């Protein structure tokens, strides 16, 4: 399953996986800019547990693909310290659940140094990490914590849902002069999609319409985009035309596109794999409610991960993730069919 993107020419496209798209983006940026380097646990020979970085060490050596001791707080700080001198580190945090260990460096340091130095010090760093459940790895390997970072002024947050978006957003992330937290859905690495041969970047703060429709808008992020597309297909079978909008970055946020789609369809469901309580879905629903209030036929509905620590047992875990069936039911309800 892949998304056509309007701006690109089909002829010069190849089908590659989400993981390959990320690896290509990093390799191209490392070739282009000698200040870019990658640092984290098991990034070099092992190429990370998900094998996303496999082979990079062969091309760039252990000086630029650096295996670190197990010390997330430490190597995040090392990254921040080097970034202020003009380096562009990619700090690999194996699971998003390990970000709390590096929180001081990300939230109180990386996010604030630019402002607190009156713009004289920059921290062009990217924290690369994962989100998403469904892998039977329980409460401390499955969380989607991107809302935390979207909450902090000074940080940008990318959450791509296709190989095309991943590659384009990665290149922007590395070139950006502000700290970026880059979340990859760990279940998506083998997802295939078309990616152009030629160089391209995708700006932050630009949503993408993954499918257009007129009856209802499904705003979905990262892992939930495929779920929303699935739901859209099922809705089509019963005669409902769903538009699927992917913000691609939670901050900066393309409010305009979200609001325009909501105005067009009048009904909105927001789906994101972070916890529902105080989550991304709440922010997006509020943006839409504020911007399209007079156009809405019903209150905005939202689906996040169930508000429980993600359990291990398959029968328990599967229920915690929003499903296409739930979305279809909610859509039918909103559209009164």
């Amino acid at each position: 399953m892949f998304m056509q993107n309007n701006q690109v020419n089909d002829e010069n496209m190849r089908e590659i996986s989400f993981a390959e798209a990320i690896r290509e983006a990093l390799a191209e940026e490392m070739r282009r800019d000698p200040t870019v380097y990658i640092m984290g646990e098991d990034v070099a020979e092992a190429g990370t547990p998900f094998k996303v970085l496999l082979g990079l060490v062969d091309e760039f050596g252990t000086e630029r693909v650096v295996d670190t001791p197990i010390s997330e707080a430490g190597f995040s700080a090392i990254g921040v310290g080097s970034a202020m001198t003009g380096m562009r580190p990619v700090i690999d945090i194996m699971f998003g659940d390990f970000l709390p260990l590096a929180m001081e460096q990300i939230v109180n340091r990386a996010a604030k140094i630019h402002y607190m130095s009156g713009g004289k010090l920059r921290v062009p760093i990217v924290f690369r990490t994962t989100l998403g459940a469904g892998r039977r790895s329980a409460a401390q390997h499955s969380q989607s914590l991107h809302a935390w970072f979207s909450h902090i002024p000074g940080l940008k947050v990318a959450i791509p849902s296709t190989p095309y978006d991943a590659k384009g957003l990665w290149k922007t992330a590395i070139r950006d002069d502000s700290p970026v937290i880059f979340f990859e859905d760990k279940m998506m690495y083998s997802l295939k999609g078309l990616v152009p041969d030629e160089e391209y970047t995708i700006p932050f703060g630009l949503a993408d319409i993954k499918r257009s429709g007129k009856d209802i808008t499904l705003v979905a992020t990262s892992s939930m985009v495929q779920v929303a597309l699935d739901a859209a297909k099922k809705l089509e079978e019963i005669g409902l035309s769903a538009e699927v909008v992917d913000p691609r970055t939670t901050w900066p946020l393309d409010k305009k596109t979200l609001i325009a789609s909501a105005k067009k369809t009048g009904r909105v469901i927001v789906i994101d794999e972070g916890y529902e309580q105080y989550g991304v879905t709440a922010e997006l629903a509020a943006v839409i409610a504020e911007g399209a209030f007079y156009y809405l036929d019903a209150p905005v509905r939202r689906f996040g991960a169930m508000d429980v620590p993600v359990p291990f047992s398959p029968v328990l875990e599967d229920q915690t993730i929003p499903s296409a069936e739930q979305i279809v039911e909610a859509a039918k309800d909103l559209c009164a069919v």
Partner: protein
Amino acid sequence: MTAYQQPLPPAAELEDSVLLQMYYQMLRARRLDERMWVLHRQGKVAFHISGIGQEGTQIGAAFALRKGYDWVYPYYRDISLVLTLGMTPRMLMLGLFGKKEAVSSGGRQMPEHFSYRPSKLVTISSPVGTQIAQAPGTAFASKIKGSDEVTVVCFGEGTTSQGDFHEGLNWASIHKLPVIFLCQNNQYAISEPMSVEMAVKSVADRAKGYNMVGVKVDGNDVLAVYDVMREAVARARKGEGPTLVEGFTYRPVPHSSDDDDRTYRSREEVESWKKKDPILRFEKLLYERKLLDDAKKTEIEAGIMDEVNDATDYAMRAPYPAAEECLYPVYGPLP
């Protein structure tokens, strides 16, 4: 199996029956662990992380403790430790499958994140090392309460690079807390060899920086570990402070069922360490002392395989949690 609940004498004076108990515990853990790998390969379970090769360190430590009295923070490789301290093969298998009856969490926690309240075993967090700073907290409470219970916390050598290690050891030493930091040094942190993890040759050397006793011991020599742990426990119980123990060993299997160790180490290296296997080594000693012969070994093996088969069958047949069990217990009961 109650013989070792009391403080036992030094290794040289241990009774034959205790030595055979040690052997049985090592072998049982090994066979259960091997079965777990098989179940993973058959696609019956989602994940396994193994303690194979580290039984010498774990059993040496377990026999130095008062079961159900001392607090233990096992880490994910501590299959033989937790089996010796009161968990059963069925319990571990139920956890592996994520079944309702699994004592650690009723299927909520990942396999091998052991906890068992009756044995005072505390579950780890998947982010490694956070238990190293919690253990002095448990020991601090024992001290305040005037109890002579001891706390043992286990972790790998790679994890000693975390800040929690520094913070935990510093605290424990300032307050002379009854805690033993048991580092199981298997020379790798997933793909990273020790040289990438630290500039020192031995984790135990770091104890000096905290004015703490640090001991490096051959982790594949169960009796040597036992003696070192026994002394550390005695010191802690008497209020003479913490010890950092480093059991030097090897992980002859991949890091976990998700890992392929061929990308980062040679087969020759792995094979050479397999020859130093702690069970083979102990077995040799028991043969030399005439405590074990082929017939007896076959008998022990058969008994163990019955236990392993029973645990497997039982766990496979056991029901999964009911769907609504997902929703609790997120919070404790209201006051």
